Every structure is written in C-alpha cells, then in structure tokens.
C-alpha cells in the first residue's frame, strides 16, 4: 500500500486499517491526514515506523478537528489548497466525547475538511472503556456487566444528527463491512466545499471480543439488523439510505460478540436486548430501512 503501509501494528482483523486505506485510496493519496490519539495513531505513527505515505499530524486526543481547521486555514492563506484534502481520522471517543468542542467549532466555521470518525464504539486504545458512542448493553471496563448492571446504561449518542444540526453540507455513516460504500461516500463528500462528516463503523477484535476472521461479518450484521444504518445527508436532507432486505433480529449480531454475551444470561439482559431491538426498529422507521415486500 502506497498511502498507508503494511508496517502498521493493528490487531489482525481490525477495521481501522481497512477504513483508512479505503479513504486514502479513494482520494488518490491527495490527503493531509490529521489523527487524534487512539488506536490508529498508536498502530501507525511510532517514530521510525511511520506507516503513513501522506503528510500526517497527530497532536492530542481531543483537538484533531481544530488542528485540521488550522491546516486548512494555512493552505487557504498560502494558496496551496490544490495540494490535497484535509482529512481527520478520529476515534469515537475523540469525536463524540472529549473532542466535541473543537469538532463543533470546526463544523460551525464550516472549514473545508473531511472528518472521518472511526467508530469502534469504545476507547479501545486504552483497553475498552465506554464512550458516548458505546451502545447500551455493552460491557466495557468502565461499564462492566455486574451483579446489578447489565453493561452500559444509556444510549449511543446520535453524532450524525449533531453533525447535521451544524448545517454542514455532507454527513454520512458507513461501515468497514462495506468498503465500496466508504469509497463512494468519500469521493462524493470531497466534492462539497465545507465540512464533511463520515462516521465509519469499525470492528475492534479485542474490544468486541470477536475473532478477526468474522470481523467483516459482524460489521455487516450491525447494518443488517438496523443497529447501524448507512445513510447520507446533503445540506441537512436525508438523500440516501442503504435498504435492508430481511432485517435480522439484533440477537444475531449480539451473540457473536463477547462485549454483549452477558446479555443472554444476565437478569436484565432480556430487557437490554429488547431495548436494542427497539433502537433498531426506530432506526428502520426513521430511515425507512426495510425493503418493503410487494
């Protein structure tokens, strides 16, 4: 790989390198990469083992959007915009929790950047602690399933709506289970001038407790159950939705992963699964996910 080398140290089956390579290739490497602290940074940017074939910067955990805004402003001021696209690669924690301030600022000012949120649904780099994008029912090290609690209580923050509410031109979700979908959305996104947000569901083999060989299958099941709808907004309007032929029950997705396994034995597990099914149903309703049988 030209733009993202094989020298990276990701766990086998990790979704991050797949997502990153797909994005960089879709843009023919014409990219200024801005990365937040997290798994991707650690697996790819060790001094002397840099895996990036594009200009790259990592500053802090919570300021990638700000740094990207600065890169973009500099390119604008110095008339170098045609050199490439400014692309953020940030984890779900960096995006939805600690970095949401600089993200909101960059979106509000509508900097010409593409913000890719690599959503592996927890702080994986630091050993699988919950983030705002951790779904309910997931057992993480800070929301462990215990005698009383069935894992995370609450919900997955609706980052897509938060992005849309900023009035930016393009917002989408995608998944490592569908690389052609990522490619298409990235190519489309950069056609818009202004801030673009794409949230990519990315399996984490260690955090999710899955074998690398089924990572793609699990990622696809998230979509096929309606838990991770693949959608697109242009200027605030929903413009496309990946339809699902026979939407599968959420159990099929949950049962393959250690992070949800307790739900099948825990006293409150049934309730939690019901809640997750409700969220999937609501997604189906909200986005019109189900392909209607005539």
């Amino acid at each position, binding site marked *: 790989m030209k733009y993202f080398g094989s020298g990276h140290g990701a766990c086998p089956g990790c979704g991050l390198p797949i997502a990153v390579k797909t994005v960089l290739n879709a843009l023919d490497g014409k990219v200024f990469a801005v990365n937040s602290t997290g798994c991707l940074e650690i697996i790819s940017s060790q*001094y002397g083992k840099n895996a*990036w074939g594009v200009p790259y910067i990592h500053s802090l955990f919570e300021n990638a959007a700000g740094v990207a*805004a600065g890169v973009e402003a500099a390119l604008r001021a110095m008339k170098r915009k045609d050199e490439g696209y400014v692309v953020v690669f940030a984890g779900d924690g960096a995006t939805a929790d600690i970095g949401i301030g600089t993200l909101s600022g960059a979106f509000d000012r509508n900097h010409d950047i593409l913000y890719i949120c690599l959503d592996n649904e927890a702080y994986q780099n630091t050993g699988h602690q919950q983030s705002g994008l951790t779904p309910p029912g997931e057992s993480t090290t800070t929301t462990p399933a215990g005698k009383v609690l069935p894992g995370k209580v609450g919900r997955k923050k609706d980052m897509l709506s938060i992005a849309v509410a900023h009035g930016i031109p393009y917002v989408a979700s995608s998944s490592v289970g569908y690389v052609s979908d990522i490619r298409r959305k990235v190519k489309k996104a950069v056609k818009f001038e202004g801030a673009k947000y794409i949230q990519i569901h990315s399996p984490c083999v260690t955090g999710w407790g899955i074998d690398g060989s089924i990572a793609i299958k699990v990622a696809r099941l998230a979509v096929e159950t309606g838990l991770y709808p693949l959608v697109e907004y242009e200027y605030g309007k929903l413009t496309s939705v990946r339809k699902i032929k026979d939407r599968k029950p959420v159990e099929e997705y949950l049962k393959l992963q250690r992070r949800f396994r307790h739900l099948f034995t825990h006293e409150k597990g049934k309730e939690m699964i019901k809640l997750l099914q409700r969220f999937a149903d609501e997604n189906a309703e909200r986005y019109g996910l189900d392909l209607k049988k005539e």
Partner: protein
Amino acid sequence: MKKVVRGFYSVAYSVKLCRPNVICAYPITPQTEIVENLAAMYANGELGEAEYITAESEFGAASILVGASAAGARVFTATCSQGLILMSEVLFNAAGMRLPIVLVNTNRALSAPLSIWNDHQDSMAMRDAGIMQVYVENNQEAHDMIPQAYKVAENKKVLLPFMVCMDGYKLTHAYEPVDLLEQEMVDSFLPPYEPAAYMTTKKPLAFGCYAPPHIYMEFRVAMQQAMERAKDVMLDVFKEWAEVSGRDWGGHITVDFPDSKIFVVAMGSVVGLLRKVVEELRNEGLSVGLIKIRTFRPFPVEEMREALKDAEKVIVLDRSVSFGYEGPVSIELKSAIYGYSSAEIYSFAVGLGGRDMPKDFLAKIIRDVGEGKEKPGFAFKGYQEFEEVIP
C-alpha cells in the same frame, strides 16, 4: 512614526507588520482588544492574505495554530489567565513538535477568586512547557518584541514557541507614545517564514509521532539544547534590532547601577516605577541597583551569576507564588546563583491580582531590607492582616 496608542494597539499593529498567515484567538480580558484590533484590520482587508479565525475556545485556538504552523504558516495568537491555562495542553504539545508559534500573554491573575487584574501566575504556570518567555516593560518594548519573537522562534537553531508577556491593563490599556514601525523596516528585518519541515503532499512527513522509551528522551534533550541555543540567537536578534530600530532594550537582563550592594530584581511593567524608586533611594545614600529580567525562558543563569557575584542583598519581587514554596522568580534565581554569590535573598510576593504597588510601598520594602529590618526568606508584602474563617 510616534503616536500615542494603547498597548493592545501597539501589539496588533506590530503583528500585522509581521505578515502572519493565520491568526486565531479567543477573547479574554484584558487581551480582547488585541484580537479585536486584528479582527478590524482583517475586516478592512489590511492583513493581506492572512486568515483570521474566531476559535470556539483558547484550546481550539491553540489547536488551530498547531495545524497551521505544521502546514508551514506563520501564526499568531494572544491570550492570558484562564485562556492560557486552557491552552496549556496544546502549548506543551506545540513546543514538543517544535512549532515556532508566537503568542502574546497579557498577564492576568488566575481564578479563584476570579480576577481580571494583573499578576504573573498565568505565564509562570507555563514555565516548564518549552516556550520562550520574554517580559516587557512598556508598550514600545511590546511593539518591538513581536518581530524579534518571530525571528528567534523561526530560527532553525531554535524552533520553539515564543511568548511575549505584557502586564494586563497596566500595559495593554495604557496610553503611551509608541514609535510605530514601518512595514519596509519589518520586512527587511523579518524575512518570510521558511519552515525547516512542514506538511506537504510533495514530501510527506509525519508530525507528532509517538515515541517509546528508547527514543522519547532524545526529543526532550533536543528541546533543552534548542533553549540553550535560543539564548545566543536571542542576543544576536536583540542586537540586530537595536541597530535597525535605534532602540537598544539590552540583553536577557538589564542591570542599573551594577556596583551596588543591594539589588532589586523584577520583571514587567513595575520595572519602570522601580527605576524611579531606586534613583531616589540612591539619592538617600542607599547602595541599590536594579535588575530587570527580560528573558525568563531560557533563564539568564550566567548573567545572574555575573550581576550578583558581589551583591550583599538581593530583593526579588515576584508577581506570583508557587504555593507551598515561594515566588518562582526567586526560586530560579537562587538556584542560578547557588555557589556563585553569597548574597542574602529576600523573596517577596507582591501585587497579586492587581494589588496596587505604589512608589512608597516599593521604596519601603527596599529601605527596610537596606536597614536590616527584614529577614531573608519569603514573605508576602502589601496585604491586609486577616483571619481565615472556615465555616
């Protein structure tokens, strides 16, 4: 061209003449008027090709400048107090990435209690960050320091952020006659920024790599070496400035009456008043001199050793406190002259949170030390006795 202007304008005007590519800040009293003036210049098309960005916070502003600087831009911000502390994580990072960001800190106290008035607690909290710090005495020095700050920071032997510290209100809002620089003069003194390394797709480089234990320490040693080199680079730049501007502000420290027995050491705007006080006390027959610290980082170790080698008593006037010990300037001065001077050190914290420091107050401190009425060590001066009531 001499004009009576306020401190914030003298800074904003000088920044404009340095032709930054990206300016980004967040308002905080008493820095606000600096960025407002720059915003007005931007709105009027007076900043050339520069981008002026209104950040969502000081943390955001500093982050934006990290990106812009890494992409090869000359950048500027100003802040103080809560804003500087909010920036601190980014600023430590910027120094480690060796980005020559120039910022002005309009020194202001830290909360709690909330205070918008002047002391040095904010910039002192940043002294370990790897950022050069120069304290100015008046608005002409602030005005003159901006082009020099860029020239030092961008020197390939240095490549570290540079913070110009000017006392909030006392300078920022003071009207003073300032000889405003000419564009041609600044252009010939300060060439366009040529980064040693920057983000470009033509030659992809990685900034902010992580370093395991086998390599981390070397980067930190390199920062220290850059600081040490900065001492010489600064002296060259200060000297060149004196030649081209006709205003010689001196080196890392300035010493008035070097043969004195007693020395007062201070930084910032209070130095102007202290000059008058010292002169009067000398007329009374007291052997007292004055040392103005201009460069606090890198610390003028050799200069202090030389200046104080025969001193009998040194009075350090600190504008902040390292709680649990004493004033940071005093702490550093003591460690610098240890083994080189047998002077007694009188360390006083004064003027916290804008507490007035009138002439008589300063004169009394010095006179009391001269007359042996004070003991060496640390004390606060200029506060009312009180009893802390814990409900």
